[in-house]
């Protein structure tokens, strides 16, 4: 379980990029974060992953207080991040990228179950990551995070820049991770259809603060409640 209470974080002291964030993410649940560009969504997931300096507030992962921890320690504790754009290492092969996730998580590799879940990656295992398509790169980023055997996954705009048919497949994969593997997902996403499909709870972020929170089903019934914050 990931809990943040009054989390304030940002690069500049006195000008926090996210302020007083309260959130809770349990295993087997999906918490979506939506908002306009510049609302602080990426800063929020980055702060939870330890990549943005923490200022005040509490962040708890299980029993451990993780605020101020270094990113590698947070990742090793079971909180994995799939950054915006995937963040794969273009100069490394598919297999090497995956082994990195396993190395960080100190797990044995190769992992047959992981390859079985991503057959397209298995086919291209010895190719450099910069030869993959956008959709394959996104798969690789998610697979690499899974190689860490995390308890919770932070996904920053996983559908960005990939074609609609692949977004559909991405939705299936993420649903499987929650329902079959019991992972908890914090999903930053612009695609409201994907959010409606997956989210148990939705947070609306504006100017670095939460301005609304609603259940996933509520978003399906009353999309205008979120759309006005997104300027749609």
């Amino acid at each position, binding site marked *: 379980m990931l809990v943040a209470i009054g989390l304030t974080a940002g690069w500049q002291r006195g000008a926090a990029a996210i302020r007083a964030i309260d959130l809770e993410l349990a295993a087997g649940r999906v918490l979506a974060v939506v908002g306009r560009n510049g609302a602080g969504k990426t800063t929020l997931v980055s702060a939870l992953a*330890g990549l943005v300096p923490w200022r005040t507030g509490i962040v708890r992962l299980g029993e451990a207080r993780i605020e101020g921890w270094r990113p590698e320690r*947070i990742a090793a504790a079971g909180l994995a991040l799939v950054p915006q754009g995937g963040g794969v*290492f273009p100069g490394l*092969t598919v297999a*090497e990228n995956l082994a*990195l996730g396993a*190395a960080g998580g100190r797990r044995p590799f190769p992992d047959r179950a992981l390859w079985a879940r991503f057959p397209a990656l298995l086919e291209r295992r010895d190719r450099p990551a910069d030869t993959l398509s956008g959709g394959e790169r996104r798969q690789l980023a998610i697979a690499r995070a899974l190689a860490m055997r995390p308890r919770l996954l932070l996904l920053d705009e996983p559908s960005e820049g990939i074609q609609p048919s692949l977004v559909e497949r991405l939705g299936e994969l993420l649903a499987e991770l929650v329902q079959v593997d019991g992972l908890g997902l914090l999903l930053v996403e612009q695609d409201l259809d994907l959010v409606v499909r997956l989210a148990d709870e939705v947070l609306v972020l504006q100017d670095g603060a939460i301005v609304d929170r609603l259940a996933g089903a509520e978003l399906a019934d009353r999309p205008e409640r979120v759309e006005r914050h997104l300027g749609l």
Partner: protein
Amino acid sequence: MSREPLLPSLALWLALLILPALAPGWLLSQLAQHLCYGLLAMSLAWVWGQGGLLSFCQAVFFGTGAYLFALVAMGRLPGVPDLPLLGLVLAPLAAGLAAFLAGLVLLTVRLPTGAPWAVMTLVLAVIAERLAVTSTWLGGSNGLAGIPPLALPLPGGPLELVDPVPTFLFVLAIAASLHLLLARLIDSPRGALVRAVREDPLRAAHLGIDPLRVRLLVFTGAAALAGLAGALFAAQFGFVAPSLLGLGLSTEALVWVAVGGRGSPLAALSGALLVKTVEELLGAWLGPGWPLALGLLVVAVVLLFPAGVLGGLLERLARPGRGR
């Protein structure tokens, strides 16, 4: 496919292996010393090419190994028996320890690994040379002379490595073995981890990898390799001087690696052999004007072949297919 292509590697080592049957003794002696420089270049290719840590102090660890070997072989290290072979074992450990301690200070203060890091390594090289010049224990600016050669304990009695052929073959065997080990390391998941930290340390960190730890290990390992090279050099040369651990040799090593190619240990080693050989030839042809000619040649090579003369070629051979 391997990142360090097999065929060019085999070709180089086989060509060097048959050399004792063809080349005169003086050339073998010279090449054996150049192979030590080649090992220094390989260590720089590891720390700079793979690890992304541009080091102006690689000779500090070469010199540390050379001095440590000299001190042990000459019985100047209290409590340590004066066995040259023991010196050869202790030299990489001492160089690795020196790098570990220096790296612990430089890396844990979270010094950026670009220009600030390079400048600090440069300062380290200057300080190390100064320390050696002022130390009477290390022979001051005169260095230490009369270092006994290595003696290999063979069944028929110890074999002193004085003659060119056994000395060359011994250094060649060590250089080839270390190249093989380094090539395997680069190809292994650990090698990928090192490159990932080089490409983007923050991205590596959110995968649970500690970039500081990785860099410290890379720096330490490279230093141990340079230390062994230094010990082998001192064992052949019989003399060590402060210039062996200073900025001059460190910069020379950077030139070898820039010419050969920093992406591959084989290219870096070949760069050292190539530059040292060209140096000898230019010296014979041009007399005192050779450094200027060599400098111009190096500038031309670096401009024309940014990945190194051999490096660019090997990269193309080693790169797995880009077609989809």
